[in-house]
């Protein structure tokens, strides 16, 4: 079980990242060993009441081990008008192993670009991103992307798509197929193994894309507005399913979205960005119990407060950020 900061005892009000990493280090020692059991039906009060049971000093592992470090990254694009567009300005961010981190911001704030830099698909104009201490120079199977556009291989069936990564990694056919079939079942597409992507709906395609990425066991999932192209109902279902899947193995997830609800519902930490130039406005810990259930969460005043607070902050920045 990975050490994970549950944010217990951190204040309700959003706070900056400096405080955060500090409290993180302290709080990481309070790690529930069995995370599934810690949040049973009766929700958050029980978690805090029971928390003493689960307090275990973790000594072997660096409690808040950083998996991704983004160090003063800037990205400047040259637009056609020979004017430089600063997509990202001096971004520094550390993402801890096993955390679900959302990057939230209006369109055009460079949040996807930041994700692409971590993916190694785009090189930053200045600054550097590191994965486990190693500078990121290109894409690699340790960082698996899931795109809004699905980007499935249309000439491959569902099974072929999911098997593609493991096969590329040299996994034997029989083994890759067995693993892939299990994954397809996990994302709820059993029976669709031999369908081509064009025969699937958007939600199903995104399920395949998720399975395809999970199939090669990346350490970090990079999700670029993965549910942005889906209708509201499908999006809700996929959010729920993603959380279910994530709560099983707790991969590190970097999740780009412009939906406040989505970010708060899914994340441990929300990185709020502002646009032109793209900057980190604030990093907010989402101190809500897991496993999260949508129907419980929507009624939870703390969840509501996060959503309202974040929305208010964006509104303020819109007014303050009027063109100078």
């Amino acid at each position, binding site marked *: 079980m990975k050490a994970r900061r549950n944010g217990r005892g951190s204040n309700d009000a959003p706070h900056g990242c400096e405080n955060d990493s500090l409290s993180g280090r302290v709080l990481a020692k309070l790690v529930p060993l069995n995370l599934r059991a810690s949040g049973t039906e009766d929700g958050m009060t029980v978690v805090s009441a029971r928390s003493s049971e689960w307090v275990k000093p973790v000594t072997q592992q660096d409690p808040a081990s950083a998996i991704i470090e983004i160090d003063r990254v800037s990205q400047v694009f040259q637009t056609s008008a020979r004017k430089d567009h600063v997509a990202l300005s001096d971004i520094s961010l550390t993402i801890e192993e096993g955390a679900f981190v959302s990057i939230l911001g209006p369109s055009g704030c460079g949040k996807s670009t930041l994700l692409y830099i971590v993916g190694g698909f785009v090189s930053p104009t200045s600054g550097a991103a590191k994965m486990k201490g190693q500078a990121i120079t290109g894409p690699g199977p340790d960082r698996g992307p899931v795109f809004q556009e699905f*980007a499935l291989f249309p*000439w491959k069936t569902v099974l072929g798509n999911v098997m593609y990564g493991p096969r590329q990694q040299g996994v034997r056919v029989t083994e890759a197929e067995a693993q892939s079939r299990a994954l397809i079942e996990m994302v709820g597409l059993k029976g669709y193994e031999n369908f081509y992507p064009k*025969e699937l709906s958007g939600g199903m395609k995104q399920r395949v894309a998720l399975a395809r990425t999970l199939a090669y066991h990346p350490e970090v999932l990079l999700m670029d507005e993965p549910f942005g192209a889906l209708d509201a109902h499908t999006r809700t279902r996929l959010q729920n399913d993603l959380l279910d899947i994530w709560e099983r193995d707790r991969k590190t997830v970097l999740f780009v979205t412009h939906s406040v609800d989505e970010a708060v519902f899914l994340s441990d930490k929300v990185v709020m960005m502002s646009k032109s130039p793209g900057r980190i406005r604030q990093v907010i810990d989402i101190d809500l119990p897991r496993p999260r259930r949508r129907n419980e969460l929507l009624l939870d005043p703390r969840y509501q407060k996060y959503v309202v607070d974040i929305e208010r902050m964006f509104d303020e920045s819109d007014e303050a950020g009027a063109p100078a």
Partner: protein
Amino acid sequence: MMSPAAMTRRAAPVLACIGLLVVWQVASLALKNDSFPTAIEAIKAIPSILGDKESLVNILASLRRMAMGFGAAVLVSIPLGLLMGRSTAVAAFFNPLLMVIYPVPKAALMPIIMLWLGVGDITKTLVIFLGVSLPVIYHSFEGAKAVEEKMLWSGAAMGLSPPQRLVRIVLPAALPEILTGCRTGLVLALITMITSEMIARQSGAGNILFNALDMGQYDTVFAMIIIVGAMGICLDAIFERVRARLVRWSEPQFDMPLSFS
């Protein structure tokens, strides 16, 4: 049992051919021109051509050159077009060259090529090669250019190297477009085959056709036109079958996406 609609669809091409022949027959009878035989006369001349050993050798020689020219063109043009589509440097280098060659009728180059390489198979095959190359390059280029960046990124994240991505992602993703180019190329191969044999007469289907024209055997001329046309239809039909198989995944057969339940 076929539905009436399906039967009409099946019968349509046959009806079109019969219609054309009827119009031809009527027009020919009306015009009473020696150089315009009736459809029936032309059709009657076909068995004598196909029964003649020398004619068959000629036609087969034509087909062989066509196959070689077409095959070589496809083998060269697809990689070139894909590279051009994915690399602006390669595209910047080859684009002007191709733009110069594109509007030139390939048959117009033939006299020069004949001076260099003689009137034999090589010249004719080369002309066919040139005729086929351009549409295949163009469509491969367009197909490669249109490949979704995110698809390539997904491949890169799985560990595919740039050359692997070109072969295993760009090529299959661009295949529908490439095959559209090949289909145009196939028809052009037939056209350049006949024109090349018109200019350098020695053997081939074009040779029969133009010799007959010189000798005023108009029924043979029109019979050859029918034969060449039929070859075109057959080759295209075979190609279409292969193409449909290869890109089944992209054909909009099942337009209605299944809803997830």
